[in-house]
C-alpha cells in the first residue's frame, strides 16, 4: 500500500494552497503570452486628437521591417520578371477553414485576402490572366477559368465562400496543371495555394502529381494559414515557389500580397519571342459618321479599324492592341526607387539631439523623430517616414529626383 502512496507522492507533497497560487501564476503567465492577439499595449492616446493610435515604439518596429522589405525589393529590381503571368489561385475551403483562430473565422479572412489579392494582381500584372480553384469535399472545382477581369473572379469567390469536407492537394494540383498546359510558351505558369487544412486526402500518390507539375514548369507557391505541412513545403521547394506560414491575419495578408508583383523568372520557364502590338488612340466618332463594323472609340494604328475595348485584337488586321498605360503599370517593377538612406544615421548631430526641427521635403510635415526620417541618395532630400513608405510602395517616384532628372536630361540633351 505504501507504494500506491509513494506513487502519488508528488501530489501529496505540495499542499493545495501552494498549488492554487502556482496555478494562478501560470494562468497569468499564459494569458500574458498567448491572449494578446489584440495588441492593446501597442495602443496609446493621441495627444492631438483624443483618439487611440498605435504608439511610437510599435510604429518604429514596423518601420524597421518595412524599410528592410523596401530595400530587398529595390535589390530585386533589375532582374527579369515574368510580365505575362498565368496564375491559378487555389483557395482551400475544406473543413479546416471553419476554424476560428482568426476573427471571425478563417473563411472570411481568407476570402477577403484572396479578393484583395486578385485585384492587386491585376493592378500589378495588367497583361496577365488568373483563375480560381476551390478545394472542397476532397475535390477541386474550377471556380473561374483563366481570364483578365478581377471583378468576375471576386464575385465568383464571394458566392463560393462556404467550407466543408477535406482538402486534396493532388486533385487541385492536377486541375491547375491540366488547364495551364495549354497557355502560350512565353507566359509564366503559376499556382498559389491559400491553405487552411493541415492534411491532404488524395485519391492516389500526390508525389507523382508533384513531379508532373515540376516537369510542366509550373511554379507553385503555398501560403499556409495554420502550420507547416511537410508535403506542401516540399511541393513549393520542388517547383521553385515560395512557402509561407501566417502568424496572424495581417501577416497572412502580407504573405498573400507578396505574390502580386511578378516573380523573377527562372531561365527556362518561358522562352522569349517577339510579339507585335499596337497602341491605338482614342478618337470619338461623330454620331452621323458612317462606319462599317464595330464602332468603338479606339483606332487601330495599323489598319485604323475601330475597336471597342483594350486590351484586345484588331478585328481587321489581328494586331494585338494594348493601351500603353497597361504596359506602363508594370514599369515600376523594372525601375524601383532605390531605398532611402536613414537620415539620422548620416547626421550624427541629429542622432544625438534625437528631435530636430526637420521638414519633409515632399509633404512639408515637420519630422519629430529624426531616427525615422530618411534621405534620398540622389537628390539628398529628406523625407518623413510616411512619404518614404508612400514613395516606395505606392508612388514609385522620388519627386525631386524626377525633377532633377528632368533638368539633367535637358543638360544631357544639349
Amino acid at each position: 500500500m505504501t507504494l500506491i502512496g509513494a506513487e502519488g507522492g508528488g501530489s501529496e507533497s505540495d499542499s493545495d494552497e501552494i498549488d492554487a497560487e502556482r496555478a494562478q501564476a501560470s494562468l497569468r503567465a499564459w494569458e500574458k503570452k498567448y491572449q494578446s492577439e489584440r495588441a492593446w499595449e501597442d495602443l496609446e492616446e493621441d495627444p492631438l486628437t483624443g483618439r487611440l493610435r498605435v504608439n511610437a515604439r510599435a510604429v518604429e518596429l514596423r518601420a524597421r521591417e518595412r524599410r528592410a522589405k523596401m530595400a530587398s525589393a529595390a535589390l530585386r529590381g533589375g532582374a527579369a520578371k515574368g510580365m505575362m503571368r498565368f496564375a491559378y489561385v487555389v483557395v482551400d475551403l475544406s473543413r479546416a477553414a471553419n476554424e476560428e483562430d482568426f476573427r471571425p473565422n478563417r473563411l472570411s479572412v481568407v476570402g477577403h485576402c484572396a479578393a484583395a489579392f486578385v485585384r492587386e494582381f491585376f493592378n500589378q500584372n495588367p497583361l496577365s490572366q488568373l483563375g480560381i480553384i476551390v478545394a472542397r469535399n476532397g475535390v477541386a472545382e474550377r471556380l473561374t477559368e483563366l481570364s483578365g477581369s478581377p471583378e468576375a473572379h471576386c464575385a465568383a469567390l464571394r458566392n463560393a465562400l462556404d467550407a466543408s469536407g477535406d482538402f486534396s492537394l493532388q486533385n487541385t494540383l492536377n486541375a491547375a496543371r491540366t488547364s495551364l498546359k495549354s497557355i502560350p510558351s512565353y507566359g509564366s505558369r503559376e499556382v498559389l495555394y491559400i491553405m487552411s487544412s493541415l492534411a491532404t486526402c488524395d485519391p492516389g500518390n500526390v508525389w507523382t502529381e508533384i513531379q508532373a507539375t515540376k516537369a510542366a514548369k509550373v511554379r507553385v507557391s503555398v501560403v499556409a494559414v495554420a502550420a507547416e505541412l511537410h508535403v506542401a513545403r516540399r511541393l513549393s521547394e520542388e517547383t521553385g515557389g515560395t512557402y509561407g506560414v501566417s502568424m496572424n491575419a495581417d501577416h497572412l495578408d502580407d504573405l498573400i500580397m507578396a505574390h502580386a508583383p511578378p516573380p523573377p523568372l527562372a531561365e527556362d520557364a518561358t522562352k522569349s519571342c517577339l510579339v507585335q502590338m499596337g497602341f491605338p488612340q482614342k478618337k470619338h466618332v461623330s454620331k452621323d459618321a458612317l462606319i462599317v463594323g464595330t464602332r468603338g472609340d479606339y483606332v487601330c494604328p495599323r489598319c485604323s479599324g475601330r475597336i471597342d475595348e483594350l486590351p484586345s485584337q484588331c478585328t481587321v488586321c489581328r494586331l494585338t492592341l494594348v493601351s500603353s498605360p497597361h504596359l506602363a503599370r508594370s514599369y515600376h517593377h523594372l525601375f524601383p526607387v532605390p531605398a532611402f538612406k536613414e537620415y539620422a544615421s548620416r547626421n550624427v548631430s541629429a542622432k544625438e539631439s534625437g528631435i530636430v526641427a526637420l521638414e519633409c521635403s515632399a509633404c512639408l510635415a515637420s519630422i519629430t523623430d529624426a531616427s525615422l526620417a530618411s534621405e534620398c541618395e540622389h537628390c539628398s532630400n529628406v523625407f518623413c517616414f510616411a512619404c518614404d513608405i508612400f514613395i516606395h510602395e505606392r508612388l514609385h517616384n522620388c519627386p525631386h529626383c524626377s525633377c532633377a532628372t528632368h533638368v539633367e536630361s535637358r543638360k544631357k540633351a544639349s
Partner: protein
Amino acid sequence: MRFTIDDGGSAPIEVFFPYDSVYPEQVAYMREMKRALDARGHGAVEMPTGTGKTITVLSMCVSYQLAHPEVGKIIYCTRTVPEMEKVLEEMKALQAYIEKELGAETARMLSLGLSSRKNMCVNPAVADEGSRESVDGRCRRLTASWVRERRLERQARDAGRTVAAEDGEGDNEGGVSCCDWFEEFETAGEKAVLPPGVYTLHDLRQFGRAKKWCPYFLARNMISFANVIVYNYQYMLDPKVASLVSSALEKECVVVFDEAHNIDNVCIEALSVNLRQQTLENAGRSITSLNARIDKAKQTDERRLRQEYERLVNGLAQQGVLARGGGEDMLMNPVIPDDILREAVPGNIRRAEHFVAVLKRFVEYLKFRLQSTQVEQETPTAFLQHCAANAGIDGKTLKFCYDRLTSLLKTLEVVDMDEYNALSLVANFAALVGTYSKGFALILEPYDERYPNIPDPVLQLACLDASLAIKPVFERFQSVFITSGTLSPIDLYPKLLGFNPVCAKSLEMTLTRECLCPMVITRGADQQAVSTKFDVRDDPNVIQNYGRILVGLAQTVPDGIVAFFVSYSYMENIVSKWHETGILREIMQHKLVFIETTDVVETSLALDNYRRACNCGRGAIFLSVARGKVAEGIDFDRHYGRAVVMYGVPYQYTLSRILRARLEYLRETFQIKESDFLAFDAVRQAAQCVGRVIRSKKDYGLMVFADKRYNSQDKRGKLPGWITSHLHEEVLNLSTDMAMQVARTFMRSMSQPFSHDDSKKSLFDQEMLNRLAAEGGYREALPAQARKLAPEIMMHI
C-alpha cells in the same frame, strides 16, 4: 577543424573535429571528458540528442589517444546494431579528417564493430539460419575443435581408402562438413589481420568474403589490435559473454556506454534468471539425454571421462577451458570471474553420473518448489538452507554446477547447445544462487498477478543490485563514461551503479530558437484534472478529456503525432473507450491512427505505414507504449513527429514483487526512497518518450505531458535540464483549450523561415574558437556564449 581544449588542468589537448563548426555544449562536453581522462576516473554526462554526442566522444577520445599513446583502446558500447553502424560512420569521417590533417601513417588506427554471428556470418549455409541461437549452434557444429579434428582424421581415413564405420556423434552431426571461411582463417593463422581503417559490420563481411576469412572470428582476433571497438552492452556487462570477448582488453581502455539511461536494468537482467515449468521439463529431458550420452561415452571411450575426472581433481584453475583454439565458445560462467573460487570441484560431482544425478535432484527440487500455491519470497541463503535440507544439495555444489556442466558437455563433445539451453539455465541459476548471498532475491509466483486464476508458476532469481554486474567494468578500466540524452537526476546513477564519477554534468542544448515546447496539461476543458493514477484512470471524464487532447492536437498539428501510454492494457482500454464514445472517429477525420502492438512485425508494419502517411501529407497518429520497443528505439524526427503526448506518468508495475524487492534493497543499501526511485524511473521513461521527436537542432516538436502530477516539482525537477529549461511558467498547469492555443502559436512561429546566420550564436566556427582560446579558454567564453549551458542539476534524494 582543430582546436585545443584547455581546462587549466594538465596539458591542453588538440582536438580533431571532422566538421567545421562545433556546438558550445560539445566543447563543454569535451572539457568534462578531458577532466575525467586526466584524472583516470569515470564520468557521467548528460547531453540532449541531436547535439552530436557520438562524434564529440569519438573525436575527444581519439585526440586524447593521439596525445597520450599510453591510453588504451576506446570501447564504445551501444544498445543496437544500427546505433553501432552510426558510430562507425562517424568514426570514418573522423578517421578521414585526421588522416587529412596528420597524414595517413601517423594516424594508423583500426576501428571495428563486433556483433553476434548472426550479423557477421558470411557462410550462406549458416547465415540462412533464422534465429541467433540456431546460427551460433550451426556455426559451432562446423567449427568446434573436435569436429575439425575428426574431420581431419576422416580425411586421412578417406585418403587411406578405408571406409570406417561412423561413430554416433559423426552421425548426428549429419556428416562432417566444415566452414571454409573458418578453415581459411585458421590456416592463415597469424597472417590473418585487418589493415588499419574503419570497419562496419558490412565492411567486415565484405572483407571476409574477399579474403575468404571468417569475419566473426577475424574481428574477435583483431580486438586486441584495434584502437576503437564498437559493440553491444552485453559484451561488456553480461559475464557469460564478457569473459569470452572482453577478457583480453587491457586496463588503460576508455569505455563509453552510449544511451545509458537504462544501463541499470541491463545490468540487472544480465544477472537475473527466471525458471518456469516449461524450462524445468526441458531440463529434465536434457538430463536424460545427457545420461544416454554418458553411457555411450562409457562404452566408446572411457578415456575421455577419466581425463576429465583427473582434471577436475586438480581443480578448475588448471583446466584450460578456453584452450584448444576452436570456434566452440561454450557456456561461460554467469558469475563475475573474480567470484569463482579457485579450488577443486567438490567430490560429489566429479564423476559425470554423480553430477547428473545431482542435477536431476536439483531439478526435481525446483519442480517441487514450483508446486507451491502461494507467493514466496526469500533470500538466497534461505533458499540454500531449504535446498540442503530437502534435496541434500549444499551451496558449494550448486556454485560449481555451471562449470561442471560446461566441462561435461565439452568432454562429451556436445556441440548443439540449443538442446541444452534449459539445463544450462538451471545450472546458471544454481551457480548464481550458490555464489551470491547478497543483492539477490528469490521470488516464486504461482500465477501472474494480472490473471490470478491461470496458474503460471515462475521462480525468479532477481538481481537487485545493478552495481554487481558493472562493478568489474569500473574496476578494470581506468575511465568509463556513461552518457545519454536523459541521465537526470545525474547524481542518482553513480549511486545505482556504485561508482564515483570525476565529472557528473548535465549539459543543455543552446538553441537558436525555442524549437522544443514542452507543456503540462493538468486538466481538460471542463477544468477536471486528468491523471492516470489508479483511482482515477478509469474515470470516463478523464478518458474523455484525454481523448479531447488528442482531437485538439490532431486539428492543430500537421503531419505526425505520437502518443505514449503507460501500458498496453491501459492503451487498449482507453482506445476502446474512445471508440465507443466516437472520439476515435473524430480523430480519424483529421489523421490516420496506428497502434503499437506486442507483435514486432505488426508494429514495424504499422510504423512503416505511419511514415508513408506522414510523407504524403495525410497526417497520422501513432499510439505507443512507454517502455515499449518504439519508445526506446524509434526516432520520430522532423515531420514524423511534430508533437508527442505522454499520457500519464509511466510508473513501473508497482505491485510486481521483484520491483518491491529491489526497492527495499535500494532503501536499505543506498538509502534511496522508494517513491523517489519510482518517480525517477517513471520520469526518465517519459523523458525518453518525448525526446523521440527532437533529433536535431533544426527539428522542432511539441511535448505534451498530460497528467496533473507532472505539475509537481518532484516530477518536473527530475526531467533532464534541456527540457526543464523550456518549461516556463506559462506552459505549466494548462487546460486543454489553453494548450491548443499554445500549440497553435508554437506551430506558427516554428514554421517561420529561420535564416542560418541566426544559428551562428549556437555554433563555434574555427576563428571564433581561436578567438575564444585567445581570450583565455572556454571557461570564460562558454558561459558568456551560452549562459544557460551546463548547470549542475542537484536533486537531493
